[in-house]
């Protein structure tokens, strides 16, 4: 029981990190960034590429992981900004369908671009975390899991601070409420949107590196399912709401953990997506979401 909760917490913290990016971007420009899951994959591959370039393999050092984490975050953040600039910004006034289709195209481009560079087979992530564990309250906890949860919690705290306490964060919230009014008040809308893409993408990149270090293998399609799951998490929590995304991520992690225990691991994804459909049917605003104003 405790073990299931703990496992759910680990997976849930990955989901939460990716869901945050979804939710932030959605909150601010009402775009479902399909390429977000692939940014997660890119984060893992940036880490892999850098470490391989230095000839590092099979390391288990936490400082090294942190360095790689930062590097991947900056790189994926910049990639996210670039994608917004090239693919989404020119279409900001287009019909929603056009932007969604563009996002699919970007996602495809990233996946198969990485496939062309690194090949279709899974790669072993060069930095692993030691998996010796201790028994605690009837559950088995490894050091690597604690490190991951701490990193995830730290990143979320930093994000909460940025959004709630800084000038930039206030600008983000203002744009989420009303972009035109925010612009009239002197907010540089384009710059703030770029910042949001940077932060969201770097969180996804961080989750990618952590997943690489935790699971040990990465491949070019690893972002697809987690992108879907993270979206589910964002919807459960209430899309556009940051605390909702965190809560939804952890909740989805738990649900999956219990779901696989009850129905068997092969039904895990079906369970999660069925939950998404049920949630959208009965409570589309999510747990913490404000009522979505659909009509203009």
């Amino acid at each position, binding site marked *: 029981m405790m073990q299931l909760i703990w496992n759910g917490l680990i997976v849930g913290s990955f989901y939460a990190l990716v869901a945050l990016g979804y939710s932030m971007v959605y909150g601010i420009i009402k775009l479902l960034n399909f390429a977000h899951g692939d940014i997660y994959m890119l984060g893992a591959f940036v880490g892999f590429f850098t470490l391989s370039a230095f000839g590092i393999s099979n390391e288990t050092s936490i400082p090294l992981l942190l360095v790689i984490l930062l590097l991947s975050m900056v790189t994926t953040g910049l990639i996210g900004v670039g994608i917004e600039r090239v693919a989404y910004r020119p279409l900001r006034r287009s019909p*929603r369908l056009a932007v969604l289709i563009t996002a699919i195209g970007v996602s495809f481009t990233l996946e198969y671009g990485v496939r062309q560079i690194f090949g279709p087979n899974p790669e072993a992530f060069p930095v692993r975390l030691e998996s010796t564990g201790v028994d605690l309250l009837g559950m088995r906890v490894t050091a690597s899991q604690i490190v991951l949860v701490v990193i995830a919690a730290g990143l979320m705290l930093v994000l909460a601070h940025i959004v709630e306490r800084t000038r930039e964060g206030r600008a983000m919230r203002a744009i989420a409420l009303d972009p035109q009014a925010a612009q009239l008040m002197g907010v540089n809308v384009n710059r703030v949107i770029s910042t949001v893409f940077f932060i969201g993408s770097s969180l996804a990149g961080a989750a990618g590196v952590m997943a690489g270090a935790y699971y040990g293998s990465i491949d070019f399609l690893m972002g697809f399912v987690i992108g879907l799951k993270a979206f589910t998490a964002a919807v459960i929590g209430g899309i556009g709401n940051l605390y909702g995304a965190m809560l939804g991520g952890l909740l989805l992690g738990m649900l999956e953990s219990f779901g696989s225990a009850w129905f068997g691991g092969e039904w895990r994804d079906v369970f999660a997506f069925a939950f998404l459909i049920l949630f959208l*049917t009965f409570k589309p605003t999510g747990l913490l979401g404000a009522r979505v104003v659909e009509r203009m």
Partner: protein
Amino acid sequence: MARRLDLALKHAPLRAPAPLFDRPRAARGVFDSQTGFMRALGGVAVLFLVALPFIDASRYTMSIAISALIYVMLCMGLNVVVGYAGLLDLGYIAFFAVGAYVSGIFTTVLGWPMWAALPATVLACIIAGIIIGAPTLRLRSDYLAIVTLGFGEIIRITANNLTITGGPSGIHGIPSWDFFGWSFEDGLTVFGLEFPERVVFYYFVAAVVIIVGVIGAGRLAKGKLGRAWKAVRDDEDAAEAMGINTYVAKISAYIIGAVWAGLAGQLMATHLSAISPNSFQFLYSALILMAVVLGGMGSTPGVIIGALFVSLAPELLRDFAEWRFLIFGVLLVVVMLFRPAGLWPATAILPWLKRDRPQPPPFTSATAAVPPSVLESPSGAPDADVREGGRG
């Protein structure tokens, strides 16, 4: 008094005033009118379809032609959903899978003949369309996109896990079509010409289904329902204000798309005689979407071109097989950025018809009293903006 007024009005010679000018007669002929040309083009395409096995009836050509036709069917179905109704469906391949699996299970496990499985396929697709569409079509369009994506995965994983679907290895030995003792496998001899099984299949099933599918979808789009779809796509609130039941319009588009995909799925099941969950990955949903977007959403000739491009490209460009998904992804972004209406937009006017701009109407006796300057100004060429500006 009022009654007398009513009577007087009833018998008064109420007539519409005489028109100010004569309407120009609608152009006829193959090269003078858009519809005439499109019909001729369709006729040529059908002729080519019929003549193809006489040109080359080799196993390879027939097999490619049948898969290309299946793609056309799928793209026409998705075009109803995305192109006409403006609903982004990212799990479209799921309905294809439902069609393939239902026909596969009914013919192998229950031993039904293939034609008897047809109603079951259609019914299963309608039910699947309602299950997935009913809860989500009330929501914003982007929720629909991601829910359909999830649904596609659910179907694939379910097919992978259940025993009745054969698990990861799928269903084998799906029979071909047979009617009352005569099977396609026997071949057919007409006027001394011998047709092997694959050619008979191509003629009697694939080609017929595709012709009906393409024309049917095109006709639907022109009717009342089709106009409702396009109104919902362009502005849902305005459509609702005009008395369209938007929910019914959306769900009917969704169901029709599902049925088209299911029929394509049954075609594929008989064509390949084996199906497995790997044929129903998200990748294929994306490929079909790509074909529709590339060709032109809502445009029948465009969608057919897109479908042929996507299905034939890997055959023609074997050396680039590795690169094709990357190229498709980049193409999707580039098309949306620079030519969002696709290669053959739904509002396209044939170039030679476009050149002669609409002339101001000729004067008749009725317009003689009006000075020409009045007709010249603001509505001099009333159609010019509509013709060139409109894009879906």
